[in-house]
């Protein structure tokens, strides 16, 4: 196995992987490259719902004092995987939803509480076991996720490689070149830790303007093309695809920073930059806040006054989670997007020439203005139908995977077929564009996650 990886990657060092399929959705409201630091919010929360497949068991109860790095809850099936408090303070509540499912663990922050201390050392000087131990006990492990399935990595498994995508091509995505300003050293430390931890190759996907070209202990692979070229799943597929029985790990760029900081300073530090974007934002820009920050800390007094409904999304418009102003930003999200809700009727909308209607198809006059940026709302623009147009999905999935056929195998609950057709290689974000372009308004991401859940249940 290692021999082959070396062969293919040596070639890829010099070349650029050009992807043609996909779609860039140009929205109004991309973040200006300005960074504003926000004070520590009064409240923070971690949401167990951000971890698909993880069954949370509480380590704390309301009223407890926690330091940054103290366990809040752990995975029932991997008790060594803990999710920790991002900042010191007091647990005020554990909010539950339907069937007592835990939705969020809320902490009232307190500057005096401080944080737990860990070993401060260059990852190179530590053993793999020591690094693993430190990541697990500090609650940083959950930032490492695995393919297949896009769930938190298991500490017992051996991945064949680690992948970090250093650029995001989704609509209005943050520019990691900007986010990393002054933090590249810390990023390198994080990469060192991942390389040492696994003893395997760390691949960093980069784009044309990347600041990540001089990384050590990692191999950079350049990608060009429209979204989803920046998706780590797409990059894995073209560098070293996941076959049955294989596992790779993925980490988000800002989460690599958390790991780097832990080893550089010895204390967990969850400062994070979030891009506030979207057509409903008065002045879209970057904001420095903390992991688990309330969305109101980001959006208050920064949205346009509107006499219509607005939708706040933690993440981007394709894969993000719809949240309310009193909610908290998602664990893995580096972006908040605000768009109009669009819950209005539109008279004969389907017959409109469509100058302002962005479409992946050529059936609207908006195609005459390829450079234009659009205000898109959350309306479905049509009713649920059976699949009729058959060539739409294929055009937005730059992988050797047949999306429609795979989705049908999932609907038919055919595990063999799902396996053969590539369910190990994709998660929701990789098929999100299919859902966007679908004329029949099919819930592609829900179907895919359903299939993944079946695989986890049946095969573990």
């Amino acid at each position: 196995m290692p021999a082959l990886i070396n062969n293919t990657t040596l070639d890829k060092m010099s070349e650029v992987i050009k992807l043609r399929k996909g779609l860039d959705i140009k929205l109004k409201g991309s973040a200006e490259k300005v960074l504003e630091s926000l004070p520590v919010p009064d409240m923070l929360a971690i949401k167990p719902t951000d971890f698909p497949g993880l069954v949370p068991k509480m380590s704390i109860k309301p009223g407890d004092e926690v330091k940054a790095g103290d366990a809040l809850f752990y995975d029932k099936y991997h008790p060594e995987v803990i999710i920790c408090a991002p900042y010191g303070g007091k647990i005020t509540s554990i909010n539950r939803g339907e069937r007592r499912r835990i939705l969020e663990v809320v902490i009232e922050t307190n500057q005096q509480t401080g944080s737990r201390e860990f070993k401060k050392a260059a990852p190179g000087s530590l053993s793999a076991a020591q690094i693993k131990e430190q990541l697990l006990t500090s609650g940083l492990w959950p930032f490492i996720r695995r393919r297949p399935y896009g769930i938190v990595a298991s500490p017992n498994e051996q991945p064949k490689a680690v992948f970090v995508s250093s650029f995001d091509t989704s609509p209005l995505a943050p520019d990691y070149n900007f986010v990393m300003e002054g933090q590249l050293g810390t990023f390198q430390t994080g990469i060192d830790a991942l390389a040492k931890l696994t003893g395997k190759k760390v691949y960093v996907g980069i784009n044309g303007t990347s600041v990540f070209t001089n990384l050590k202990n990692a191999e950079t692979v350049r990608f060009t093309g429209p979204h989803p070229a920046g998706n780590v799943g797409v990059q894995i597929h073209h560098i070293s695809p996941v076959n049955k029985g294989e596992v790779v790990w993925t980490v988000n760029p800002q989460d690599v920073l958390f790991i780097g900081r832990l080893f550089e300073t010895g204390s967990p530090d969850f400062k994070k930059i979030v891009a506030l974007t979207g057509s409903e934002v008065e002045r879209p820009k970057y904001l420095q806040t903390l992991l688990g920050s309330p969305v109101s800390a980001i959006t208050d007094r920064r949205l346009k006054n509107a006499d219509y409904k607005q939708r706040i999304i933690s993440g981007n418009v394709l894969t993000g989670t719809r949240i309310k102003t009193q909610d908290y930003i998602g664990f893995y999200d580096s972006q908040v997007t605000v768009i109009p809700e669009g819950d209005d009727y539109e008279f004969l909308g389907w017959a409109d020439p469509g100058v302002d209607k962005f479409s992946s198809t050529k059936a609207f006059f908006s195609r005459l203005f390829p450079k234009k940026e659009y205000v898109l709302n959350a309306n479905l623009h049509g009713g649920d139908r059976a699949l009729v147009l058959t060539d739409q999905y294929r055009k937005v999935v730059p992988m050797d995977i047949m999306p429609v056929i795979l989705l049908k195998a999932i609907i038919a609950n055919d595990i063999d077929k799902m396996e053969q057709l590539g369910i190990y290689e994709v998660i929701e974000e990789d098929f999100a564009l299919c859902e966007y372009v679908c004329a029949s308004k099919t819930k592609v991401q829900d179907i895919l996650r359903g299939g993944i859940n079946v695989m986890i249940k049946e095969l573990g």
Partner: protein
Amino acid sequence: MKSLKNFFEKTKPLVQKGAKYHWLHSTHDAFFTFLFVPKTTAKTGTHIHDYIDLKRAMSIVVLSLVPALLFGMYNVGYQHFLVTGELASTGFFDIFLYGLIKVLPIVIVSYGVGLGLEFVFAQMRGHEVNEGFLVSGMLIPLIMPVETPLWMIGLATAFAVIFGKEVFGGTGMNIWNPALVARAFLFFAYPAQMSGNDVWVALDEGDKVIDGFTGATPLADAAAATADSPLTYSVADAFFGFIPGSIGETSVVAILLGALILIVTGIGNWKLMLSTLLGGAFMGIILNLFAVNTYMELPFWQHLILGGFAFGLVFMATDPVSAAQTNRGKWIYGFMIGVLAILIRVLNPAFPEGMMLAILLMNTFAPLIDHYVVQSHVKRRMKRAKVSA
């Protein structure tokens, strides 16, 4: 606009389940969503959705059929006055009006019966009314001979909607192109009324016809042609469409206009069109090379402008539901339609036209083609797994 919207919003509770007018639910919903794009927003998954929906996609297909429909109306009048010998003395609008009066009832019956059934099925199933029939309802009149009795159109449409589509689960689930199911139904159920030479030109009782008129389509002529009876049409006539034939199929120009709309908007798949064209040309050339009779000598390119070939290629082979779903499958599917259409046309004496049967046959085989394309895709993926293991 606002009062219309209010009317629909106010009457909505009346058609909900358990309410008095629940049996009108699908009808209410169909008209409401036709007039107003619903206000439904994304609950899960992507927050933004493409503006394309089936209403737009289907209405573009209907739009692309309009040139063929209008020309078909004109040609019905043209053929009528041609054979009655009154063409020179009749004005453009009278010619068109004659065709309009002949064709419009067929369109109305097709839409009336089909949509009526669609509403009933949607109501029974608790679905929304699907837009698929907007296209089928236009295709059916265009592929019928003008003299088809209206009751047959109605019967064929009902057969197509029920057994061609709804028994499979409705739009998107059907195996065969519903419009062709209607055509095939009539072709096999009422062969006396649907073929031969008497159905292609509209004639009223008491009409006198010119000497030498047979009523045969150029294809029937071609099939009967011998070395000493040259073909009775000019290539230009066939291209522009001034020949007898099913209502919408005669004019290649009108069909090309439709093809242009479909390709420019991307709603029709150009690969299916091209592969069908290549298949037809390929088979035509083969027949030319091994020609043993006059029909086989008919230059291959003339096949492409005669009969239903162009119409089937642009509007029926491209039906995304009944065609192959995979990309490679589409190339094979289209190519085989072209090959079979010409093959049936020339070599099977029972059928002067082969396009309908070719498409229906390939509709049937489309899932098989897809199966093998998917298998080879899976094989390639498995090989990758072995290499890296």
